[in-house]
């Protein structure tokens, strides 16, 4: 629906303009490091690199291997907190 995509664009614009997007990014990064997600993913990266060979690994290889697993491994508590923050922001700035 183009109306929804327009709305999404507006929301994203507002997020970026108010600096909230950067803050959310930092918050997410901190939470993921804290809960051990980053270490888990790094260990997985090591396996991928050992598999593909240290010299020949490309960014694409890593992205293809890491992103789906990374998405799945985000703990629920972190997801909940971020969703809560986003919803609070929208509630505050949507009206």
């Amino acid at each position, binding site marked *: 629906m183009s109306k929804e995509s327009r*709305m999404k664009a507006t929301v994203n614009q507002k997020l970026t303009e108010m600096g909230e997007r950067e803050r959310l990014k930092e918050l997410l990064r901190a939470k993921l490091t804290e809960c051990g997600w980053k270490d888990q993913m790094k260990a997985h990266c090591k396996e991928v690199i050992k598999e593909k060979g240290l010299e020949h*690994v490309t960014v694409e290889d890593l992205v293809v291997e890491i992103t789906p697993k990374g998405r799945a491994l985000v703990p629920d508590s972190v997801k909940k907190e971020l*969703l809560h923050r986003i919803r609070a922001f929208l509630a505050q700035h949507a009206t």
Partner: protein
Amino acid sequence: MRLSSNHWAQTRVKAKNTTVHTKPNKRPVQARVTLGETRSHMLSGLINTRRLRRCTQDILSDLVEDACLGLCFEVHRAVKQGYFFLDDTDQESMRDFEIVDQPGLDVFGQVYNQWKNKECVCPNCSRSIAASRFAPHLEKCLGMGRNSSRIANRRIVTGNNTNNKSESDQEDNDDVNDNDWSYGAEKKAKKRKSDKNFSCMTFTCNGVLLHCCIGAFP
């Protein structure tokens, strides 16, 4: 609910300057508005919870993807610059310094409550005291620590040795009891202070060299 035509005329006039006005049996008509109002009007449509939820989920997945990509770039750079595997050493060293997780040992494998059960003999009262309680005991025993109420302890000690004490001493002691500010007490206190303001003792106990420092700061 049926409204009078009069009422409708009024509302129509009022509604001219607002964004939306409705007529009975007709769909809502959007009046002409400014761009800013359009934006906030669209955002106010988020009150619809399903759309709100979808929107927040999308934003979250964008952020997570961002984090994953960031990690990929970081790792890739570390690999190409050669510092990714720096913290891995050979297997043997890894095994040497592995964290120890046994009861009674700390993470380095050292015994940490070794002195808890050892007992020392107090040189003053010749009692056997546990090592961890030794310093406070010594404080009280010698009557020199901060909380040791020196006068009372001295009295007990001199009370035990009444045979060796002269009468004058006893009198002085009484003075000390009665009035802390009496000359006799002061003299005694001063004398004691200069003698034993700070005392250190070194002795061995069960083969361990112990050094105790007890001081009363003026």
